[in-house]
């Protein structure tokens, strides 16, 4: 097991000081702003501005493809839309740059919403092909719709933006683009540490966990598309003014592929990935132009080497090299987490449990009847077990209560609300939490961040507040993190709150899932085999945990094979067998029922199994 008390030497004190990172970023920002003064060449300045523009596109694409997991091959086309709208408005209609850029951004965002529509229905691979087709259509329109776009000759003489009657020079354009890049980077960083970041990653890594946490997939995906496209459209506006001439040749399919290469090899789904990728795959090759024909060969070899040796892109490789360096210098691989600034432990309020009333539930999968007119009542505030042989329909029943499947017939009422036909996210928001047979956590996020995902629907700070990290967003974030740590402590993971969920042992991942469900303050908690794979000690703790959850007033429905646990914590047991209710009643009565013993428990009586 890992040794937790690594001695902290002088090197560790320096490395763990938060000012180290802040100073590095400040130096970088100063360097960027000073660059035009020391560039001493129009070419370098031009290149610098272009990097800024490409970086915007890469950040937009990273949001969509890296974080949200929707591979797009049409960001070149979105760039074209932003550029053409700006160019046409300024050149042909005499608009000033600013409204033209805004309209360009809005129209590109609209195009983003349009390509989002198929993404709700198709898998990621199909989606990539659809975006490719979209890029082809846009490319075709740039040529065929000559009355608007001037076809092959393109739009010529796009004016620089101007302010106070003065047209920008190249250095001023650079500063403007750099400022927008930095602002965009900061807002992106804020979004990613807030609920949107967790939501996007949930969409990418585990849609089921996202839905169970009350996230509306449609709305969040649409949001990612629109933001990503808007940023790309804004980049397009600057692209047009920087080039002064744009033609359809500037936006071939290669451009879209180039951006995907930048994001993936830079480090997809990592904040610095887009920046590192843009520098590595745009600037470096430009600077190598003197090598002429060798350039492409070197470029190709570098791409291959990266794919082989840096599976998480440049950003991932640098992060892991940094961890190794820290270890070599005698520090822990990751900086120690900030001490919790929790405003006291949040009090866990009692809730009013939800009653469940199921009548005549029928579900067929193909020719198999998974549930055959099952009726079942769960009293508010009770702990109710559903047991039965494998394949008897227990998990199917849970999946229908929380809306993952729609029953063919029958009704499910939670308190007095009929939920058949409601969306999963809608049912979750009524106060239904659940855990899964195989824990569905987001492996790259910490236990705390995973728990925080469970409160997605409860957060109130608006998009703008989160992007600007306004006081309300900051307060909410701190309160939520404190709550997450509290609930992780409640389930017994108090010591592992900052560990990556994927590194937790299986049994503890289950507990983290329970914490994620609890933070949403459920009134009904559905647990799917929480005890599978737990040791005896852990079983005892789980039993105590479930009892204390019930003490909060929460109704608990548990599917479980550990009969001693069931007998210990439940007042009612329902036995399912091949989709029908075989027996129900108190544990004592049910586990003594000969039919249950024959179908489910086998020859070992409970007393012996529970010894």
């Amino acid at each position, binding site marked *: *097991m*890992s040794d937790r008390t690594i001695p902290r030497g002088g090197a560790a004190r320096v490395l763990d000081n938060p000012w180290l990172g802040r100073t590095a970023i400040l130096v970088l920002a100063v360097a960027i702003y000073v660059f035009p003064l020391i560039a001493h060449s129009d070419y370098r300045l031009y290149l610098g501005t272009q990097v800024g523009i490409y970086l915007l596109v890469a950040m937009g694409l990273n949001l969509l493809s890296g974080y949200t997991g929707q591979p797009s091959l049409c960001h070149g086309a979105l760039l074209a839309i932003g550029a053409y709208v700006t160019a046409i408005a300024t050149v042909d209609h005499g608009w000033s740059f600013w409204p033209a850029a805004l309209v360009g951004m809005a129209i590109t965002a609209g195009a983003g919403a349009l390509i989002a529509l198929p993404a709700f229905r198709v898998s990621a691979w199909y989606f990539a092909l659809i975006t490719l087709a979209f890029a082809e259509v846009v490319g075709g329109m740039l040529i065929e719709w000559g009355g608007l776009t001037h076809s092959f000759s393109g739009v010529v003489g796009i004016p620089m933006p101007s302010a106070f009657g003065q047209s920008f020079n190249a250095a001023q354009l650079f500063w403007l683009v750099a400022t927008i890049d930095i602002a965009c980077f900061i807002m992106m960083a804020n979004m990613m540490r807030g609920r949107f970041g967790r939501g996007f990653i949930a969409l990418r890594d585990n849609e089921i966990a996202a839905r169970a946490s009350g996230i509306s997939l449609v709305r969040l995906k649409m949001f990612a598309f629109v933001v990503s496209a808007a940023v790309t459209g804004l980049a397009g506006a600057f692209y047009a003014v920087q080039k002064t001439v744009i033609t359809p040749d500037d936006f071939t399919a290669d451009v879209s592929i180039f951006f995907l290469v930048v994001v993936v090899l830079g480090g997809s789904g990592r904040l610095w990935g887009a920046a590192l990728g843009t520098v590595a795959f745009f600037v470096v090759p430009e600077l190598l132009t003197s090598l002429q024909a060798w350039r492409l060969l070197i470029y190709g070899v570098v791409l291959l080497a990266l794919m082989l040796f840096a599976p998480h892109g440049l950003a991932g490789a640098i992060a892991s090299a940094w*961890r190794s360096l820290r*270890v070599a210098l005698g520090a822990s*691989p990751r900086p120690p987490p900030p001490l919790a600034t929790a405003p006291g432990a949040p009090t866990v309020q009692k809730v009013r449990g939800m009653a469940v009333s199921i009548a005549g539930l029928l579900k067929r*999968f193909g020719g*198999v009847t998974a549930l055959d007119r099952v009726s079942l009542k769960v009293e508010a505030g009770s702990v109710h077990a559903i*047991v*039965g*042989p*494998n*394949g008897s329909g227990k998990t199917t029943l849970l999946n229908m209560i929380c809306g993952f499947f729609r029953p063919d017939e029958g009704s499910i009422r939670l308190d007095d609300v009929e939920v058949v036909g409601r969306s999963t996210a809608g049912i979750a928001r009524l106060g239904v939490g659940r855990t899964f*047979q*195989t824990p569905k956590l987001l492996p790259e996020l910490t236990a705390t961040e995973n728990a925080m995902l469970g409160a997605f629907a409860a957060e109130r700070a608006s998009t703008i507040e989160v992007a600007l990290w306004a006081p309300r967003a900051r307060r909410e974030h701190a309160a939520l993190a404190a709550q997450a740590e509290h609930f992780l402590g409640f389930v017994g993971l108090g010591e592992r709150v900052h560990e990556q969920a994927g590194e937790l*042992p*299986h*049994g*503890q991942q289950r507990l983290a899932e329970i914490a994620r469900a609890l933070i949403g303050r459920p009134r009904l908690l559905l647990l799917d*085999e929480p005890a*599978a*794979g*737990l*040791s*005896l*000690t*852990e*079983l*005892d703790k789980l039993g105590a945990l479930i009892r204390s959850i019930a003490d909060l007033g929460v109704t608990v429905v548990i599917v479980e*094979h550990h*009969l001693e646990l069931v007998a210990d914590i439940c007042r009612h047991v329902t036995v399912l067998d091949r989709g029908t209710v075989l027996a129900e009643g108190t544990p004592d009565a049910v586990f003594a029922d000969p039919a249950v013993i024959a*179908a*489910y*428990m*086998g*020859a*070992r009586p409970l007393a012996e*199994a529970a*010894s």
Partner: protein
Amino acid sequence: MTALLQVEAIDVGYGHVGVLENVSLTVDQGSIVALVGSNGAGKSTLLRAISGLLRPRRGRIVFAGTDLAGAPPNRVVDAGILHVAEGRRLFRQQSVDDNLELGLYGARIARSNVAARYARVFELFPVLAERRRSRAGVLSGGQQQMLAIAQALMREPRLLMLDEPSLGLAPIIVDQVLEVLLRLRDGGTTILLVEQMVERALEIADFGFVLQNGRLIGQGPAAELARSDIVTSAYVGAKQHN
């Protein structure tokens, strides 16, 4: 009895984290050996090291006279060690038959013997014979576990390693699975069993090893271990047996 597998003083870890330290154990030919310990003790890690999925930092893994430490998994399988991992890792979209056939992937056996192999696993697991054409993904949990074991048995392993075969199974199915393990042992297969249901595991095992925090803290004949305090102490604050 002769030792089939000897693990000698291995250290195993992931990245910067060490998991197993100086672990040695011996599995005798034709026995069932149970490996018990609380979650996170390193049981699955030990199986992964033996099957070549993890490379030990130190130590030897001698199987039938050959040191396999650091050998790639395919060589370990060829040597006759089959690992049924936790959580029924099947080809869910493939039929039962296809899953069984994939169990023979790369095995050098005569065509004429293949039918006999099928017959043997169907004899052990009659329920699979009834569902040969079903996709593995639609089988019940118990049937999937049986299929996972059957897939390994297609190769007629000399050592079968099982990681938590009872996970998520109804009690009556657990009985059936353990029953099959006893029959396999009686047929000459050596079994290394990792199981959270300690008592059930020690009931069918001949010998047991107890792991705690990556170290071996006890070993002995299974019946003795079941009665001793070592197992209880491996689960700190473990339930008092009544």
